[in-house]
């Protein structure tokens, strides 16, 4: 079970005529042929839903192609499973976390070494812990300060992602695939990771870097493969230097020739400053005073936080995930009880109110992890929306029938059909299960459900465009801006800095359970300074 050693030509990966069709009939990849060269940082580019992650998983052995071949150094190979690929020297960092939360970092490394074949089940821990201490040294050498004896759940999101990346680098693998692996890192940390990627590339390894962020393309890529709707639409063998070359890439990524329109909508600019004017209205809609909230393990996650949201504004909350954002949101919505502090909403102190009371008052929540927390996937669209509406704003749906309160389904159906149309949801029928909708439509369904009725005063929007394609992302962002114009305030929590800088009127930075910086004017924010606040270096 030796890991193939590094040498010149060895690590070329080719995919030929790959098709991948998922069980629900979705064609993720359609006749994809591409090469990934060693000694090179190959960029796999495309917007969300284009098929990048699917291709990565195929190369990493996690899933099998429906048709087509994968070649390693010219020889066709069929991966038995992801461990097989790992032992052949192919490692991947996914978009989602794969560390075991209850285990320490060290234990995770041991499990990983087990996967690599370096240890066996019956080995005594102690002798292998010594070897794993080498990893600790490696981490320090790369300039990061992470305590490997801590349990993973106690680490903030950026450290978790770093561990996933670093353990791949440490494992001496020949092919390293990074799928949106810098989503949780601060810009400065991302720089360090890039430096390490360059080093590995110069050693001759094969790096596949997947992203949808165009900025990173210019920083890191040696060659570019653009995927759109499951097909390879463009390949660039040279690093894109000029704006013209970038334009070509963008054109293919979004399959549009109207670059000007795209630029206007997407505000892709050449430097790190974002231009915007801000207008404020001083009536407060939400005021949080000295809020303390505990996390799932009894530790304090929100430590005396203060913030204010005014009417008609979008307040962005920036910060590395894991510094108390989730706990803060849950305390505002009512899912989690604060241990002390006050939350004033529209003049009332709601800190002891149940969730439905807050929702009925106009404080609504759009959760992240939508499949887990915002919908009951197995139920039909009708049932999912009915439950929410009947619970929060049932007024004209209840008919009295000989003294009993019964539900008027015909009225429900017509209003639901109506609202789905207004929110541009594409669906088969309202009796179909929610989980059959495509990702973007699920989120639009959720928005229709939550924003479709009642007098909404404040929206807590948590990662509203995560994982969505460009078109839907834009739809949702413009929807949020519209809502703001019409009197709704929004607290936007996002790990996508670009999104925050694009939409917010004010930006707050959260670190270690407190607000450490407020930018009243989102124009002329220095991103470097912002990163420092996010990392607690200021």
């Amino acid at each position, binding site marked *: 079970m030796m890991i193939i050693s590094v040498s010149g030509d060895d690590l070329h990966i080719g995919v030929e005529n790959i098709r991948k069709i998922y069980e629900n009939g979705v064609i993720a990849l359609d006749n994809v042929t591409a090469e990934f060269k060693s000694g090179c940082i190959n960029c796999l580019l495309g917007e969300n839903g284009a098929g990048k992650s699917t291709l990565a998983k195929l190369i990493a052995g996690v899933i099998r192609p429906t048709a087509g071949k994968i070649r390693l150094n010219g020889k066709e190979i069929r991966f038995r499973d*992801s*461990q097989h690929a790992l032992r052949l020297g192919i490692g991947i960092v996914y978009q989602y976390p794969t560390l075991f939360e209850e285990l320490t970092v060290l234990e995770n490394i041991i499990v990983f070494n087990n996967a690599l074949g370096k240890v066996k089940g019956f080995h*005594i821990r102690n002798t292998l812990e010594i070897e794993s201490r080498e990893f600790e040294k490696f981490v320090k050498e790369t300039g990061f300060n992470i305590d490997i004896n801590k349990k993973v759940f106690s680490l903030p999101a950026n450290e978790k992602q770093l561990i996933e990346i670093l353990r791949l680098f440490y494992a001496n693998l020949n092919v390293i695939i990074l799928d949106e692996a810098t989503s949780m890192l601060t810009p400065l940390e991302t720089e360090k990771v890039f430096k390490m990627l360059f080093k590995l590339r110069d050693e001759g390894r094969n790096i596949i870097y997947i992203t949808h962020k165009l900025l990173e393309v210019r920083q890191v890529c040696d060659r570019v493969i653009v995927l759109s709707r499951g097909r390879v639409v463009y390949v660039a063998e040279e690093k894109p230097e000029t704006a013209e070359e970038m334009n070509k890439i963008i054109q293919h990524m979004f399959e549009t020739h109207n670059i000007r329109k795209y630029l206007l909508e997407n505000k892709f600019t050449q430097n790190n400053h974002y231009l915007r004017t801000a207008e404020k209205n001083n009536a407060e809609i939400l005021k949080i005073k000295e809020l303390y909230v505990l996390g799932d393990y009894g530790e304090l996650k929100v430590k005396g936080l203060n913030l204010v949201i005014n009417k008609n504004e979008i307040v962005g909350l920036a910060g590395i995930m894991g510094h108390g954002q989730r706990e803060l949101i849950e305390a505002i919505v009512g899912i989690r009880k604060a241990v002390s502090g006050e939350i004033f909403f529209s003049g009332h102190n709601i800190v002891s109110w149940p969730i439905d009371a807050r929702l009925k008052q106009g404080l609504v929540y759009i959760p992240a992890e939508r499949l887990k927390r915002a919908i009951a996937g197995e139920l039909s669209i009708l049932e999912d929306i009915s439950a929410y509406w009947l619970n929060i704003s049932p007024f004209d749906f209840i008919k009295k029938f000989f003294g009993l309160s019964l539900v008027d389904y015909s009225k429900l159906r017509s209003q639901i059909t109506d609202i789905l149309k207004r929110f541009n949801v594409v669906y088969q029928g309202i009796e179909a299960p929610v989980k059959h909708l495509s990702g973007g439509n699920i989120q639009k369904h959720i928005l229709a459900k939550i924003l479709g009725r009642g007098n909404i005063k404040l929206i807590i929007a948590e990662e509203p465009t995560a994982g969505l394609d460009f078109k839907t992302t834009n739809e949702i962002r413009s929807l949020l801006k519209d809502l703001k114009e019409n009197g709704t305030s929004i607290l936007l929590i996002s790990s996508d800095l670009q999104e925050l800088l694009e939409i917010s009127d004010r930006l707050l930075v959260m670190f270690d359970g407190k607000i450490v910086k407020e930018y009243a004017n989102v124009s002329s924010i220095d991103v470097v300074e912002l990163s420092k606040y996010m990392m607690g270096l200021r």
Partner: protein
Amino acid sequence: MSGVEIVSQFLKDLIAFSTLIGLATLGELLNEKVGVLNLSIDGALWIGALMTFITAYFTGSITIAILVAIGSSLSIYLLFGYMTLVKNVDQVYTGVAINLICYGVCFYIYRSIFEWGIRDASPHINVSLSDIEIPYLSQIPIIGYMLFRQTILTYLFLFLIIPLIYFIIKKTIIGIIIKAIGEDPEKAETLGINVNRYRFIILMNAGILTGISSTMFVLYFSNVYLTEMVAGRGFIAIALIILGKWELIPTILACLFYSSLEALQYRVITLISGLFPYQFILMLPYLATIIALGAVGRKVKPPASLGKTRTRTK
């Protein structure tokens, strides 16, 4: 009886009872650590106890009886394993269903054999496990009496099973892998861990342990078979694991706590049956379990994948 003698006897009973509940509990503890919730322990205990009784009645051999008990317990666990690991049925539902079948089958078999078949009005067996005294050590006051005058099964439990499990969980890589599987079996699979194989082996081991513990009902604590014998101890085992926060030492302590109540009940009933309705003493273990669960309940997190059915994606 002097005070010391009473205490010694009490402690001895305590240890004996702890073997009974402990074997089954520890087996299930490992199960739950890898995310398997086997609610049919109770049923397996019923069948094991009954089979032990029948075998001992007809063959008079303890060894064969114990082997039969292990075998029957294993078959229940095999059924459970098949339904949940292979056929992917909901674990809770399967556990409850298998339990019900076991109860029914026990009623049926017992009645067929002893009421309709042999027409033995009060069947009892003449063999039982005897206490084995270890020379010298058993002379130590109190502690010696408590620990070294036990049956061979207890010695097995105390000096082999417990240290072995401790070693595996705390000192080997397998312990880490167990934790990993318990948290997220899908992630573990991607790292090359054969989750089903681990779960199956651990399940079978639990079956063996449960089988051994089921023999103690009729071979030690009693020599007749009553259908109410097991009295929900399979579920108490599950409750004890929750009390023990799914960790080895606290679970063992929880078993000891429960066994102390059982030991109390064992002797005390005969002492005070005149004074106090015995049913309330019988209720005690169940109430205590509920109260104890209340004390622990809030802060405890089970292994994240406990009891969840896995969906196949590929």
